[in-house]
């Protein structure tokens, strides 16, 4: 995940500082230098790095820092505050009009415009109940219109195109006419990728801008982008008066520093973050949480919120009671696992929790594979068997194994897991009764 290694680096730096009880010019200097290198390696623009480190330095060198008991924490705080400022203090949503909201997506080739158009449509249709029209304006890249059409079909969203021989400006006009006439809430226009120095193609976008007056003009920025990203953004911004940025491919291991630079240099808010290949993989961008992540505090808030969404509180309560009572069936086990799955991939969860950065991608992939095995084994059992797993002896196990196409060993593993979970529930109940929590909480 993005920023991970940056946060690792910061952790390293602060660990060194923790051993000393006061921040001095000398130890600050080396820490600042390391911060500078870390930021540069994260593709934060050179000028932004300079400004950022200057800020941190001047603030940290103030007297109040030197008199604090824990200078390491103080430096974290200063870095954090500065980063939050750099990233923009608020989270920013799409501006919705009373009538039709028009959104134009633009950017360099391969930044992720078409995929993001699909993701935005999904978000607006399925989470916000909006009537969405997707319009394909990319008449240049072969099959770009087909690509958007496929996404629209998958989402059950209406799609507008006029073929590859049309003028994108006309397509935009006609799409808007249709959207207005047929009472759509949102029109999302996917434009062709272009270089910011391509005058002819930039003029085309300017014309669309002039005629349509989009509510939002969003620039797609690749999380992997290097130092030049700020120049790209400022050129697009000059020509089109952007309203915000979407960062794509944040699920990679790029640190995404360039997008931070754009925010810093142009003041454009980062409105969304693309975090995966599925159409649901679009997140709101939370600057302060991202700053937390940079500092290695883990994206706890995001985790909590996601958890809230996935767990229906009442079922959760019932679930908990049932489990504690020891009436824990295989159905419950499966439901529990599915709830966890709804939180997102195990990988993304593990990475949000502080102190858990060591799970490798192979391990998480393995765990997700395991979940699929569990599901197919349990699904191959009769309802009676799921409620009374104890009845699963040799012949029943054989049948289940055949039914799901797996081996007896795997069926046994599922049952063992159920037994373990059940045992754990019992123990937790005892802890609860005795008023003690199982170890690991508090100090």
């Amino acid at each position: 995940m993005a920023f991970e290694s940056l946060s690792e680096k910061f952790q390293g730096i602060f660990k060194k500082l923790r051993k000393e009880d006061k921040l001095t010019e000398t130890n600050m200097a080396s820490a600042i230098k390391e911060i500078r290198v870390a930021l540069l390696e994260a593709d934060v623009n050179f000028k932004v790095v300079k400004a950022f480190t200057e800020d941190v330095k001047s603030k940290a060198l103030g007297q109040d820092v030197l008199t604090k008991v824990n200078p390491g924490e103080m430096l974290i705080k200063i870095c954090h505050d500065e980063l939050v400022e750099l990233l923009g203090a608020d989270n920013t949503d799409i501006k919705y009009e009373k009538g039709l909201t028009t959104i134009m997506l633009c950017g360099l080739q391969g930044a992720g415009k078409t995929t993001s158009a699909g993701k935005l449509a999904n978000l607006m249709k399925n989470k916000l109940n909006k009537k969405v029209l997707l319009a394909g304006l990319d008449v240049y890249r072969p099959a770009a219109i087909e690509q958007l059409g496929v996404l629209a079909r998958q989402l059950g969203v209406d799609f507008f195109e006029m073929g590859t021989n049309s003028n994108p400006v006309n397509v935009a006009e006609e799409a808007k006419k249709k959207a207005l006439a047929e009472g759509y809430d949102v029109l999302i226009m996917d434009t062709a990728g272009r270089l910011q120095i391509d005058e002819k193609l930039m003029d085309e976008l300017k014309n669309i801008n002039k005629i349509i007056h989009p509510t939002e003009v969003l620039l797609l920025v690749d999380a992997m982008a290097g130092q030049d990203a700020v120049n790209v953004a400022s050129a697009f911004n000059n020509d089109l008066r952007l309203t915000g940025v979407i960062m794509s491919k944040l699920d990679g291991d790029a640190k995404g520093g360039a997008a931070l630079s754009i925010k810093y240099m142009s003041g454009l808010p980062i409105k969304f973050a693309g975090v995966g290949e599925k159409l649901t993989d679009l997140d709101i961008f939370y600057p302060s949480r991202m700053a937390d992540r940079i500092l290695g505090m883990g994206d706890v808030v995001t985790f909590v919120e996601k958890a809230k969404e996935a767990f229906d509180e009442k079922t959760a309560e019932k679930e908990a009671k049932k489990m504690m009572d020891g009436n824990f069936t295989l159905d419950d086990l499966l439901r529990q696992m599915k709830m966890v799955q709804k939180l997102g991939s195990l990988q993304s969860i593990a990475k949000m929790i502080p102190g858990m950065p060591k799970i490798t991608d192979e391990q998480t992939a393995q765990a997700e594979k395991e979940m699929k095995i569990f599901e197919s084994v349990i699904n191959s059992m009769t309802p009676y068997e799921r409620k009374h797993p104890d009845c699963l002896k040799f012949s029943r196990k054989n049948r289940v194994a055949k039914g799901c196409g797996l081996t007896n060993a795997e069926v046994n593993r599922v049952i063992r897991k159920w037994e373990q979970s059940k045992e754990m529930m019992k123990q937790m109940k005892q802890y609860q009764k005795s008023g003690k929590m199982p170890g690991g909480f508090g100090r």
Partner: protein
Amino acid sequence: MGLFAFLKEKFSKKDKNEKTEKYEKGLAKSRQAFASRLDDLSKRYSSVNEDYFEELEQILIEADVGVSLTIKLVEQLLDKSEEEGITDPAKINEELVDAMFVGYVENGGNITNEIQFRDSGPTVLLVEGVNGVGKTTSIAKLAKRYMNKGKKVLLVAADTFRAGAVDQLKIWASRLGCPIITGKENGDPASVCYDGAKYAKENNIDLVIVDTAGRLQNKANLMQELGKMNRVISREIEGAPHETFLIIDATTGQNGVSQAKSFKEVSNITGIVITKMDGTSKGGIILSIRDELGVPVRFIGLGEKMEDLEEFDLDEYLNGLLVGNGK
């Protein structure tokens, strides 16, 4: 004679050939920001000092050369300046060009850029990269290049994941007039490779170019899928894939090194194609990749037209980026 002077002489004296013109034109925007800043720097300082080297560092980092390689280069220059008493900024800049050139050449053996064909039977080229770098477009350009050289080319659309990816390659195949093997959407890419290999053997194809789905290098299961495709191809055609190109977008920052590293782990990368060099990015990351992993750049994308994919030539690249014609 230093390389800088050499380049200047080489490229100013003779009538420029088509290739030099393409490089100079394609890299014009990159050069504007890079060479003119170097130039400006050497004019502002009468002799080099700490500030000078700091500004030099900035120019290199802003070209995505990367922090560690930049520091390495600048330290080399500092040493040279001390040892040989060089204080003339223009001289130091020439030394920089030398250092970049020598560093690139030393970090890996000489390699022929053109695809190395087998004596008989189909040669297989696998094309990999993260999402949105320009794999499909580069494949079309490569296909065109070798069809022009009289080779029978087959395209294999093994990107079964991205919506519209197969259609995109199909359109190219029909424009180019070459055969294409496609599979089912969301089908197993390895089975498309199998079909492609079979077709190639039966139809005397010279060059099989396999398009793969874009994948971020930290997605373990997708990277494993590449391994599987490699295995299937090598079972069907001896020694295949004979070439594996990693496509890198010139706008990529430091992540480019991680990309090269990870793709190298699952497949035998024989070369890099750097795309979108006609923008304002400097593509400095290819120097870092070469420095850390020794993988050579084989082709360079200098524009949107089919002919704009050129063999990578370090002389031309450095000339186009640093010396060039006009600012």
